[in-house]
């Protein structure tokens, strides 16, 4: 079974802190994603990576950056956390196979609270 593991289930950080959210997948997937989930807003894509060191902005990249130094690991960085970044963060991975794209596999989520 594909496993996507997020390093923390719950985090509490102070305003202005630099925050790292880590995600590791064990199925050699090329694609990795970071989403933010807020009530009534569904999932919004923050950043997407389709290969090592490659990244692409999603719909809401402001205030975030990412790092993908190894294929299995995709990190989300909040450079200076703010209270409006309090949210559930979901990591996902998928693999394009030829002309078909497969479904995404999700981690358990990290609920981040910025105080």
């Amino acid at each position: 079974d594909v496993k996507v593991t997020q390093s923390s289930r719950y985090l509490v950080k102070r305003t202005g802190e630099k925050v790292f959210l880590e995600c590791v997948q064990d199925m050699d997937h090329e694609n990795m994603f970071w989403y933010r989930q807020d009530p009534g807003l569904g999932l919004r894509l923050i950043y997407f990576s389709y290969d090592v060191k490659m990244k692409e902005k999603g719909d809401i990249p402001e205030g975030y950056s990412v790092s993908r130094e190894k294929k299995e690991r995709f990190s989300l960085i909040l450079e200076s956390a703010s209270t409006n970044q309090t949210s559930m963060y979901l990591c996902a991975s998928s693999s394009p196979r030829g002309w078909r794209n497969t479904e995404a596999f999700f981690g358990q989520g990290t609920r981040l609270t910025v105080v």
Partner: protein
Amino acid sequence: AQSVTQLDSQVPVFEEAPVELRCNYSSSVSVYLFWYVQYPNQGLQLLLKYLSGSTLVKGINGFEAEFNKSQTSFHLRKPSVHISDTAEYFCAVTLFTNAGKSTFGDGTTLTVKP
């Protein structure tokens, strides 16, 4: 760009009743379609997917969905729900050529009452 609309934000039903969760999408090109389920305090997991072929697809836990190209819909159905089906359900679309990036609907909360 593609978009996804889930027509109901909340669907309350009684146990053993049928349920339909509605999803419409818009796209100028062909898409793949997915339904995911999220149980409380968990990530999303795949219920079912439409890639090609038969327009009626069956998924886990007795769910099924029908792809209707003319109406650009992909509604999720279950003939008899259980308490354990209480969860949030997300419809998602991926363009054939969009490297796996999906656009998600806002979600439908299904609450099954005894």
